[in-house]
């Protein structure tokens, strides 16, 4: 669990403006606890991924939603495959 301040301290390249913009776009989805944004581990790792996509892999602002959407679909499918595999193990 992290606040937005802690998150910006963790990643030198991250500005609160960028992060708020990503939250607005739905790229990052922290919990809202009594009006305060709280980031779980997956949110922290997602911010790291977006920073790497932007700074290291030069994915620009316009392409970012496309890349994230495809990644989300890929991971959703992998999760379902894994669940189905578990379900099969249980019934086998």
């Amino acid at each position, binding site marked *: 669990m992290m606040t937005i301040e802690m998150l910006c301290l963790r990643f030198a390249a991250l500005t609160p403006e960028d992060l708020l913009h990503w939250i607005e776009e739905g790229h990052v989805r922290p919990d809202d606890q009594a009006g305060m944004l709280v980031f779980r581990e997956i949110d922290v790792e997602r911010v790291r991924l977006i920073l790497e996509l932007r700074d290291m892999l030069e994915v620009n602002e316009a392409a970012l939603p496309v890349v994230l959407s495809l990644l989300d679909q890929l991971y959703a499918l992998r999760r379902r495959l894994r669940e*189905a595999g578990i379900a099969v193990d249980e019934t086998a």
Partner: protein
Amino acid sequence: MADDPYQVLGVAQGATPDAIKKAYRKLARAHHPDLNPGKPAAEARFKAVSAAHEILSDPDKRARFDRGEIDGAGQEQAPAGGYRRQAEEAAGARYGTAPPEGMFDDLLAEMFARQRPDGPRAGRDESYLLKVPFASAVMGATEELTLPDGRVLRVQIPPGVETGQVLRLRGQGGAGRQGGPAGDALIELDVAPHPVFRREGFDLRLDLPVTLREAVLGGAVEVPTPSGALRVTLPAGSDTGRQIRLRGKGVAGHGARAAGDLLLALRVVIGPPDAALEAFLRDWVPEHPQDPRAGLEAGR
């Protein structure tokens, strides 16, 4: 022994910082672990690329490596690929925009069914065509059907079946697997037509040829029926087209359904030329002269 960072990035010793950056970006895009969740090797490759870039992107470290003061291990970056581990677990549902529930269920079921040949599965239904003689369809019978695998099925044909009707023999289809029930045999019937009888629902029709004498004088004639020949007494003066109904001599009854009727339609046959008949008719004066074509003009 750490790899040579120049080799890892695939650049020459004298490469410009720009060329190094370009090579690094290209490799990072290809091997970023979060973009390659199914390939563990990508992570190792990405680490090596990052380590190489760490050294070559820093002029000071690059110079020290070139002088042999440090080896290719340099120092390792913060591990990338952390998102992958999160997204694959239940927590990943937070960003799981797709696919909708059920989108892959059919594919998955198919895949796992193939992987699990040991589960009990019902056998398949097998379809066959059985030619049924007309009499069997009318009276009911037991017909034999030889299957492609050599088995012979005895098929009970109830009276009254028609072409296109399908009989289901439970458990006579494909064998089940691992204790699964066998499939059914689906037998489509093809009832042969009859040269003289015609089906009309559960009634039968027969054109009955009679001689001139039988038609005029009446008398007993032998009539074929599906259940055997029958003696029928014709009334005198039975003209062509006269209909005689033989109750219960049509399609045999079955369960609550009563038997159909056999409908005879008389057809007078004069036969070959006969001198006596011709002589008689030449002198014959009808008792009630009649024009059989009266009323045909109305059709004009």
